């Protein structure tokens, strides 16, 4: 069972940049992104999220997002995909960085989730 990461932001550049940052410490982790609306404006897109889920090479995906409205599209997409998605209400960049580091090190999901706990936020 492999773990991957999907990053969702209101801004395309934020997720491409973050994906680069994570790639440095997690070369073997599948990281896919969904940034901006379908028209690449500021906002999020359930279609892009679904695509990021399906492009991800892992069986189970840890999903991270920037602001609250992204979460709603993430949840909609989660209901529409057959993949197992874990959604975290944690600091976006810091949480995704932590998860990427730990997945790369072969750490198991329950332990990763333990490490994400201190990064939890009301979002």
């Amino acid at each position: 069972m492999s773990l991957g990461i999907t990053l969702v932001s209101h801004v395309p550049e934020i997720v491409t940049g973050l994906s680069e940052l994570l790639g440095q410490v997690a070369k073997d982790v599948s990281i896919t992104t969904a940034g901006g609306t379908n028209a690449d404006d500021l906002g999020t897109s359930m279609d892009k999220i679904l695509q990021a889920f399906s492009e991800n090479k892992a069986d189970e995906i840890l999903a991270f997002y920037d602001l609250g409205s992204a979460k709603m599209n993430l949840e909609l997409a989660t209901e529409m995909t057959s993949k197992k998605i874990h959604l975290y209400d944690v600091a976006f960049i810091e949480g995704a960085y932590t998860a990427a580091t730990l997945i790369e090190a072969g750490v198991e999901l329950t332990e990763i989730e333990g490490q994400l706990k201190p990064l939890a936020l009301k979002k």
Partner: protein
Amino acid sequence: MGLTVKNVIEWMNNFSAKIEQNKQFLSDLDTAIGDGDHGFNMSRGMTAVSQKLSTEPKTITDAFKQIAMTLISTVGGASGPLYGTAFLEMAKKSSTSSDIGDLLAAALTGIKKRGGAEPGDKTMVDVWTALVPEVKTNKLTQEKIASAVEATKDLVAKKGRASYLGERSKGHVDPGSQSSGYLFEALLETEGIL
């Protein structure tokens, strides 16, 4: 006469027209306590919905499903998945009921589940919570709609972008409540649907 594919389309086209007419106003409301795009988001969404419905769907369920998916794909802001979920729930409910009150009640449950907002949080949930019972008891009026929208003004936002402002969100009508008001107005104006 109740719900028909035709009056659902009429309802949506009327809603779309109201959004179009007030898109700057809705975005201005959103500028005060959000990111200033709500009118443009809804306009993009409802223009696409009207376009979609120009090919008449076969059933009411299909119609609601198409409305939902179109809003989800085009709105871009929080209101996209929220209105989208509302119409998805109406689509589901429409397979066992053709009562508009029942459908709207299912929609409200969906909106609350999707966004996690409760009445009083200064979101569209407030307007829906006030008006769905009025639809059910056949007592919806223009005045009740206006006062439900207006009532969001003095609330402190607990959900959505406005919640970052805390106390400072007071004194402004919630944009999503205003657009929801137009949805109910359009419903009220649609001959034979209530």
